[in-house]
């Protein structure tokens, strides 16, 4: 799926509110990707993201009647996503006592700016198809199925390309560290 604009979202949601199921499917697929990307960018752990995305989808479905067709979609949508995120933090805060944060801190890894630059640099060395697959899979958090639909190739082909790209990257990183 290519980049989604405010106009696309508005058209799809307006169509959905008139009962167009196809438009609604496109809208919800776009919401899935936006919510997933947003939540990942907020540092939510990957295993929690999918649950939250589903909560967002259900909330959007319940709240869709409140959408004003004359208003933009994104502020409405992000208000719902942020509400769900805040709700998630509220739930988490109730379970603070039982969490071992020292252990989490020791086991977690958050890439810094230099790491990101390095990863980008390494990705740019790959062929464009492999680059696209790896970015979609590892950076944007898309599923294999979404990538296969987006690129028009089979799911197993996506997995194979991703595997080869990672192997190639490992080799390149090995080379570059040898140079250093």
């Amino acid at each position: 799926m290519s980049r989604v604009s405010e106009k696309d979202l508005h058209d799809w949601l307006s169509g959905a509110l008139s009962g167009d199921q196809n438009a609604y499917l496109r809208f919800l697929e776009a919401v899935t990707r936006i919510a997933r990307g947003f939540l990942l960018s907020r540092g939510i752990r990957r295993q929690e993201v999918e649950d939250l995305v589903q909560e967002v989808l259900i909330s959007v479905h319940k709240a869709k009647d409140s959408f004003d067709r004359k208003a933009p979609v994104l502020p409405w949508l992000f208000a719902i996503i942020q509400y769900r995120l805040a709700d998630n933090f509220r739930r988490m805060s109730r379970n603070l006592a039982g969490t071992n944060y020292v252990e989490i801190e020791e086991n977690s890894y958050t890439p810094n700016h230099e790491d990101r630059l390095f990863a980008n640099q390494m990705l740019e060395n790959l062929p464009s198809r492999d680059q696209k697959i790896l970015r979609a899979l590892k950076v944007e958090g898309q599923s294999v199925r979404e990538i296969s639909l987006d690129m028009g190739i089979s799911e197993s082909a996506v997995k194979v390309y991703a595997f080869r790209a990672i192997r190639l990257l490992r080799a390149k990183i090995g080379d570059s560290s040898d140079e250093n």
Partner: protein
Amino acid sequence: MKTEELVGNLVHDLRPTRHVTWRMKAAFWIMVSSLYLVVVAYFFGFRLDLSKKIYEASFAIPLLALASLAVGSAIVFTFLSVPRLEITRVQKSVPWIIVWLWVVYLGMSLSSSGGLHFHGFLHPISWTCARDLLLFGAVPFFVAWALVKSGAPTQPRMASFHSLMASGALGAIGVQLICANDSPSHLLAWHVLPLIVIVMLFRKLVATTFRWA
């Protein structure tokens, strides 16, 4: 359940809907609540000197302040029944306008009477004003609650505060129309204080009912 399956189910569940704007909700609330106010006040009996009092600034201005408070809060709670990120000028300014209207209202009432008179505070008959305020405010509150609940409030506390405030202000107007005691001490203790107490006591509880499942 996988996300793709959920999307499929939600799409299958789609029904065409008719959108009700927050302006329509606000207008509906003001209309229904005003009608209820008049009917209940008629049932209790308007104060006998109302036709004269309505032209006195010391009576009319606080009444207008309460009406503005009710309408202002109604605008805010219906506005907040729609998810939104942007804080508009309306959202920013209305709570302050409300606060200032209260300050003006109390200041005017007290200055015109030369200060507080505590002897009238606990007069047994005064309790009926607090009871009437609850009665006048009950139906407007349930209508407000239903309007917010039928939307999707992402700021439940603020929506709760303003739905209680709007209904309470309307209740205070109702009491003002039937109560013949104009002593500022009485107004403060039995017309204003119950409203503040109700808002403070119930705002958290109401907010929890506005949370999404």
